[in-house]
């Protein structure tokens, strides 16, 4: 199976994530879309890992470990991110990013 399939799939997921970030105004949904983007990347990395393993690369495990670290970081990011969103919600009672326009020009 050509690796292109996986490339296209994960790019598609990635771009759907980007679209989501652009289209939605709910900070939480936007954040979810970002997670979707990360997952698309993870999928791609895993596919490449398999590809290079099949091509005979020795240290091909590194890609899967990379995915592991991405998950680790994502978890950390989620904890901080949700904390920030909650803090924002406490002050404004909204998670709509469009009200974030105090800082401009």
């Amino acid at each position, binding site marked *: 199976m050509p690796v292109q399939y996986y490339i296209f799939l994960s790019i598609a997921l990635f771009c759907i994530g*980007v679209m989501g*970030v*652009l289209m939605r*105004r709910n900070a939480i949904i936007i954040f979810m879309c970002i997670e979707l983007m990360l997952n698309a990347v993870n999928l791609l990395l895993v596919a490449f890992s398999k590809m290079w393993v099949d091509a005979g690369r020795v240290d091909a495990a590194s890609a899967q470990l990379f995915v592991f670290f991405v998950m680790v970081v994502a978890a950390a990011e989620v904890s901080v991110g949700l904390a920030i969103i909650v803090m924002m919600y406490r002050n404004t009672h909204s998670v709509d*990013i*469009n009200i*974030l*326009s*105090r*800082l*401009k*020009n």
Partner: protein
Amino acid sequence: MIHLVWLVPFLPLLGFLINGLGRRYLSKSLTGVIGSGSVVAAFVISLLIFFEVRTPGFAPQVVTLFDFINVGSLHIPFAFQVDQLSALFLLIITGVGSLIHIYSTSYMHEESNEGFARYFAYLNLFVFSMLILVLGANYVMMFIGWEGVGLCSYLLIGFWFKNIDYNKAANKAFIMNRIGDLGFLLGIFLLIQQFGSVTFTEVFAQVPGIGTGSTVLFAIAMLLFIGAMGKSAQIPLYTWLPDAMAGPTPVSALIHAATMVTAGIYMVARSNVIYSLAPCIQAIIAIIGLATALLAASIALKQNDIKKVLAYSTVSQLGYMFLALGVGAYTAAVFHVMTHAFFKALLFLGSGSVIHAMGGEQDIRKMGGLKKWMPVTNITFLIGCLAIAGIPGLSGFFSKDEILAHTFGYNKIMYALALLGALMTAFYMFRLYYITFSGKFRGTHEQEHHLHESPAAITLPLIVLAVLSVIGGYVGMPEVFGVPHFLAEYLSPIFAPSAPYLHAHHLSHALEWGLMGLSTALVIVMILWARGKFSNYQDAGTENTGIAKVLENKWYVDELYDAIIVKPLMALSGFFQNMVEKAGIDALVNGVGRGVKWGSGRVRLLQNGQVGFYIFAMVIGMVVLLVISLFL
């Protein structure tokens, strides 16, 4: 004696410095002594030099003081050249200059101490500059004096600086001179380019090698002549001279009649080799000289200011001198310079004496019958008039006749016109004389009460000059008289190099006698006519009309210049100032600044505070950059 020639200009310079710096501390008499004494001393030295130069076979000597400008192959020393021409001019300048200095001690006596010293300082400075002009051994030295006399003229015209009109006249004189100087300067540059030198001896030695008809030579000759036009008040740069009468009268006598204005003639005579090799420029000079002579004479016919009449007469006489130069009669030109210096100085000083007596009045319509009160002035003035009119036996006759004779040989029509000018000269001079000195006094009673003959310091120079005006001509009597032409012999080494290129027109003796007789007769007729018309002049008070009005208004030349030069220049300046500078360049420069600010105001709107838009812009940016990189 020759090696002491530097003393000649140095003494007046010393006088200038002492009088100028010490003007607060010196008494008037001391100032007068220093001022006049320095010039008289210079005259004495000049006289000694002259006698040395006069000896036959005298070769020109160059006295180098120090290096002035030394750049690469261009060497311009600060050097004086003593030869027949410069020695003659030294005599005229210091001689007439001394007389005028002496005259001034009395004439300017009413000035304050400081003003008196300032006056003498300027006068001395003028003599210094003029001496540098004639003594210089190269064109740059000549230019130094050239501009120097322009400066002194400026200072002296504007001597009474509180009067704005005088200042304007002074400015006009200086600026018009500068226009001429510009031509002179360009001529010098062309000389440098062509010959790599500005020293007379070196240049003149190379000139014949170029040959007749060379464009470069024409250009040099023309440019130098432009300089002469400015200084010697020829068309079109003559209008400053009549206005220059704003200065004290002795100044007019010295600068604007006897010396400075002859600088142009001196220069052309000095460069005779160049001009002889540029015949078409000579023709131009002759035509311009003639035109100037006629134009100025015509204007003089209708002027009522005593000094203005004399001023236009000067312009006219200078025209004759250029006519002489143009037709190749260099000696005649120099001769006329000399005689003119005598009788014109005399006339001006005489008019000064009149003005002095009239308490500053210059309008001849308010004078009349002055011979009763001022016998010496009257006689000397009459001699001056006769001399300038060309009555045989007086100096003016000989010099003018020589010019006319040469002109006749050159071109008959020009001769006729020149003769016409001479007749006009006789007419307006005697108009002046009769209105001023004969008839009834037309001034106020107070003026009449104060009328008196001037003191000795004034009359003495008048008498000396009158004598010179009479006898001055005998150094250059025409051949037909059977006596040697002393001046021509004396000057022959100067003009020898150009002799081969001139086409001498030898007139037969009979023709020469005939011409002489004709002009004399006509002149006498004119004098009589003037006598008949003006000896009992009464101011009718009517407005002049027609040609008379045009003449009275000097052919409206000043107005013309104003319209075609001054106004456009001001308009151009205004255009530069308002349109190009403010609305153009500066607006552009400021516009860049404003553009940055404007752009800033627009760009910052991108920063609209919306995260959605920010990410959107980032994605668009990514897409564009990816496309550029991957597909372009």
